């Protein structure tokens, strides 16, 4: 708590007012503290100063010595005894700024009436505050071909560009994707790409957002609206567990764009292109609007809410039931499912992990993740970061940006234990420990970490037996912090809410009697089921074996699991109540379908991977769609086993009043790693991950975004390529007994025993096509 005292403060005078700011503060930001706005374009607090636009010139003297000419306040750190005169008190600064503004406008087109930036344009605004009404320029303006696509998603209008280099500096300094650069020279200088390499960065939208003019526009928003017609709502990103603060802009009930919000401790001012540009699913998907009930003929027909709720209640009451809730539920909704399972269904058979998972993982989550407090700040301070079964750029992009920042600013050492060297790890100049799929656990024991180190472990760790046990052991022996980073936005919240068979809300172990009493008392229940519930796989098996008769399913894609055939069979067999936003493989097999609100239509919160609440309000207010927990509450009422969660607010209050479990955590029983299989010459071990941009449901309807996704390829090592006689670009077939995929081969850095393909990209949907995604032996052959 001494950090505040350690910062040296510097006092200076700006326009006659004294101000004290931390050493190293730039003059332009010291002025902001006083409420003095110095005009600027190239300046951006998260980019290295460049001093290019010269709009922020001010007069400065230090201890009586005046600079002979005005200085760019965005490049000069404060010094003791500094006297700064901005445009408000210095005629020289005022004229300098007016002069620069005039020069900026000389070659700027007067197309504000048709420019998307009009109305929220720093150039427009500052031309009003700092410029002059009439131009003295009588010459010929520089012209360029009107907007050119620098990717399928981003358009560049060079005439409007003021060459502040924010976009190019962002791409290089923040994203490490220098696909856009300043090209040419002098008055012809322009932002551009290499002609055969589009601006396909996962973070390209940030360049659009920080453009201070209308030079960069996103295809999805271009010409759609005027800023003053939009209603903006602070929101949280529902796509992944990074937890970005966002802003959602809506006109007439329709989301038109989403922007990165400003949260210094999480996403700073950035987000990824998926978070920014994948929102049309809300309207693009064929949304469910009316409840449906399967009639006597086995056909789903529309029904009134009372009829549907009654049918759901009856079916659930008549059967031993379980709950499957996907990883996209909000914290409050997950809590609703958790409470519904225990109170309305009287079971601990609930699992939010609608993906490949394991019991080792469930124990790991209860022992090391629930309630954990590792944060982005720990990455900022880490002496070393170890990546285990986790590709930050693909699976939690803001974590990647934070790692990249630490790498660029202080050469953070990053080590990745993986089978294939990824683009992201390459950008971090990471130490790549190459292991065969399934052999990750063994590589962990050789790592030397300290209590300043952080282990970032992804959800895919559950796919390698013994890996999470090895992570726990390494953390214990070194004192390193563990951060478990799932892909989906709702998983951490669902874990904390107890939407899993071994935990009750607040991290209370089911197996702990005192913990059960705690919750039972809060819920005014006699008692709660005492046995750990089944996991998702077991639930499916139990349905198929007849010991479970009904399922409540919310937001689950059965194809996200390896045993998709069994899952589909179970859905056919059981009495299924499906809470969904759109028709799916589940609704098609459900007995009762209940439409629910999409994220933008309701309030709530997610807990990001840190466990940090990311609250949001409904951005689109006028739909009648209800949140999951409201509907669960109504079913429970109908069953006569009330859960009393009428509103999101009520749920949030109840969660808060429960507090956290402060008793002992349940233990993780160490699992040992499986033996590496021996391979025939035509065999390999498959590995994969989901790419950021892929066939994910929430990316539906975003064709421009999809066109920037990375190429679908099958990756093999040079050695394997040799033995198969395969070159880059040849077609390679990967097959199992279930089926096969055939993809262009890419020969690069990967373990010789392995083959990699994207898990859920066009042409490579491994779980449905092969039934395996990691660690299994597959056949590979030249196609």
């Amino acid at each position, binding site marked *: 708590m001494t950090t505040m005292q350690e910062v040296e403060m510097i006092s200076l005078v700006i326009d006659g007012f004294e101000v004290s700011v931390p050493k190293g503060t730039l003059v332009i930001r010291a002025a902001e503290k006083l409420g003095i706005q110095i005009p600027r374009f190239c300046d951006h607090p998260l980019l290295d*100063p*460049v*001093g*290019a*636009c*010269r*709009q922020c*010139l001010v007069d400065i003297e230090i201890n009586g010595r005046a600079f*002979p*000419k*005005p200085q760019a306040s965005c*490049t000069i750190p404060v010094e003791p005894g500094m006297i700064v005169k901005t445009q408000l008190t210095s005629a020289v600064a005022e*004229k*300098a700024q007016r*002069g*620069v503004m*005039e*020069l*900026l406008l*000389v*070659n700027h087109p007067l197309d504000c009436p048709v420019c998307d930036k009009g109305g929220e344009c720093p150039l427009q605004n500052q031309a009003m505050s700092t410029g002059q009404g009439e131009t*003295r*320029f009588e*010459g*010929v303006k*520089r012209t360029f071909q009107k907007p050119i696509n620098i990717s399928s998603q981003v358009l560049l209008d060079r005439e409007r560009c*003021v*060459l502040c280099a924010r976009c190019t500096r962002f791409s290089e300094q923040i994203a490490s994707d220098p696909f856009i650069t*300043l090209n*040419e*020279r*002098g*008055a*012809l*200088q322009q932002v551009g790409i290499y002609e055969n390499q589009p601006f396909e960065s996962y973070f390209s939208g940030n360049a659009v957002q920080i453009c201070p003019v209308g030079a960069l526009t996103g295809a999805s928003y271009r010409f759609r609206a005027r800023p003053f017609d939009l209603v903006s709502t602070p929101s949280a990103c529902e796509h992944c567990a990074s937890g970005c603060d966002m802003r959602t802009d809506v006109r007439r009930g329709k989301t038109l764009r989403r922007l990165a919000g400003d949260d210094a401790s999480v996403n700073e001012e950035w987000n990824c292109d998926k978070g920014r540009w994948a929102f049309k699913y809300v309207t693009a998907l064929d949304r469910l609007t009316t409840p449906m009930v399967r009639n006597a003929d086995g056909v789903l027909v529309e029904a009134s809410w009372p009829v549907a709720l009654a049918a759901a209640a009856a079916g659930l009451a008549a059967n031993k039931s379980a709950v499957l809730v996907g990883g996209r539920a909000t914290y409050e909704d997950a809590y609703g499912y958790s409470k519904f399972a225990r109170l309305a269904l009287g079971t601990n058979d609930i699992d939010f992990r609608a993906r490949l998972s394991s019991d080792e993982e469930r124990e790991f989550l209860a022992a090391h993740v629930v309630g954990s407090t590792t944060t982005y700040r720990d990455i900022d301070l880490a002496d070393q970061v170890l990546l285990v079964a986790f590709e930050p750029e693909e699976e939690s992009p803001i974590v990647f940006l934070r790692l990249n920042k630490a790498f660029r600013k202080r050469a953070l050492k990053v080590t990745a234990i993986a089978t294939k060297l990824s683009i992201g790890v390459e950008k971090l100049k990471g130490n790549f420990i190459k292991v065969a799929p399934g052999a990750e656990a063994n590589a962990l024991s050789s790592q030397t970490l300290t209590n300043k180190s952080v282990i970032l472990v992804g959800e895919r760790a559950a796919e390698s037996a013994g890996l999470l046990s090895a992570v726990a052991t390494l953390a214990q022996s070194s004192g390193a912090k563990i951060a478990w980073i799932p892909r989906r936005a709702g998983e951490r919240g669902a874990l904390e809410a107890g939407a899993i068979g071994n935990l009750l809300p607040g991290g209370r172990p089911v197996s702990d009697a005192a913990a059960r009493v705690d919750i039972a008392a809060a819920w005014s229940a006699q008692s709660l089921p005492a046995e750990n519930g089944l996991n998702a796989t077991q639930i499916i098996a139990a349905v198929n074996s007849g010991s479970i008769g009904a399922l409540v399913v919310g937001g689950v894609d059965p194809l996200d699991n390896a045993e998709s055939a069994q899952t589909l069979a179970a859905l056919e067999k059981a009495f299924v109540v499906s809470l969904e936003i759109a028709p799916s493989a589940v609704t098609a097999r459900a007995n009762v379908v209940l439409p629910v609100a999409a994220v933008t239509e309701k309030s709530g919160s997610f807990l990001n991977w840190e466990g940090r609440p990311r609250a949001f309000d409904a951005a689109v207010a006028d739909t009648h769609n209800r949140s999951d927990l409201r509907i669960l509450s109504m079913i429970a009422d109908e069953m006569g086993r009330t859960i009393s969660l009428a509103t999101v607010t009520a749920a949030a209050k109840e969660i808060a009043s429960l507090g956290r479990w402060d008793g002992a955590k349940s233990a993780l029983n160490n699992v040992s790693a499986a033996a590496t299989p021996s391979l025939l010459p035509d065999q390999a071990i498959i590995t994969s991950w989901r790419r950021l941009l892929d066939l994910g449901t929430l990316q539906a309807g975003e064709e421009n975004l999809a066109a920037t996704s990375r190429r679908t390829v099958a990756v093999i090592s040079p050695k394997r390529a040799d033995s198969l006689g395969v070159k880059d670009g040849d077609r390679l077939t990967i097959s199992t007994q279930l089926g096969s995929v055939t993809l262009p081969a890419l020969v690069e850095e990967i373990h010789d025993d392995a083959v990699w393909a994207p898990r859920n990209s066009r042409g490579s949907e491994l779980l449905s096509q092969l039934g395996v995604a990691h660690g299994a032996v597959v056949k590979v052959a030249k196609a």
Partner: protein
Amino acid sequence: MTKLAPVLSAHWDEKDSFTIEAYTRNGGYKASKKALAMDPDAVIQLVKDSGLRGRGGAGFPTGMKWGFIPQGDNKEHYLVVNADESEPGTCKDTPLLLANPHVLIEGCIIASHAIRAKHAFIYIRGEVTHVVRRLNQAIEDAYKAGHLGNGIELVLHVGAGAYICGEETALLDSLEGFRGQPRLRPPFPAIAGLYARPTVVNNVESIASVPAIIENGAEWYQAMGTEKSKGTTLYSLSGHVKNPGQFEAPLGITLREILELSGGIRNGHSLKFWTPGGSSTPLFTAEHLDVPLDYEGVSAAGSMLGTKALQIFDETTCVVRAVLRWTEFYKHESCGKCTPCREGTWWLVQILRDLENGKGTEADLAKLLDLCDNIMGRSFCALGDGATSPITSSIKYFREEYIAHLTLGACPFDPVASTLFEGASK
């Protein structure tokens, strides 16, 4: 007493002057041997004592620059020689390197030793193929002779056409493989230059002056020149003179003296305006013939010594045309980084083109000057400042000529009259 003092140019008239044999024959590589036996700090002190100042234009004391390099910091240090000679009118380093590349190499060895650099670079402009050949061969020969490679590596880096790379931080970015755009200062190159390591950037002539100083001593050098501008330097005379060329003389010689020595303005014509040190230095006229051409003298008269590029124009030359052409140069060479220079030079050219064609009013002159005021001291580096020099100085001395264009509605000058082959083409 002779006004000239050939030191750098002393042996240029020997046919093989550029070879290592000739250089050695004339005493070359003795100074480096002597310097390498000295304590590096003593070398720096000697150069400080000599009074040698940077010959690239700014006139910063060379020894002091070397002294800024942190010692004992366990970092690599670099010496970078600026051979990107591109300032209009400037033509001293090119003939020097053609005639005697080894003197620069020897200077590099001495300077590297003084600043504890193991690696030196010569950044030469790319538009001089034969100079590149000569330097490259000389470096090869110096390696073969063991002058290089025993603790000091020297790399020749060839530019590719960008005036801005003469600006030292742009040069460093270019040498690192980036676009040659100037860097923010601080940090200064002495602290974080090439590859963010302590770096000295010196002009060719500055470094080439060092071997003679080591050989003959600081006092010898001090004895030449004026009070604050010591030693000899190359003055490059060009334009409407009978005999253009290189004149090595102690600092402080006047243009009148050089013209008297060389034969004066071309026959039948008279001096109209001239640049003391390239196009970025404000113009002088006949009234400045007796200004001592040293750092202080030229500065006191309202211009800068710059590169001592004495471009002489006689009365046949239209000053508006001359200034327009320079302005077009600055527009072409503006790196594009900052607004005032990039957009300002673009606009200046348009106004000047109109004025040269007799279009516009006197108010345009005021606009032109105001525009210069908005560029001068507002740009990122000195290129923008330099672009305004010919404009403001020409309006100061030749306002009537600008107005004459407007009155006539056209340029009153015959461009043929100012050509060298005027008459030949008639």
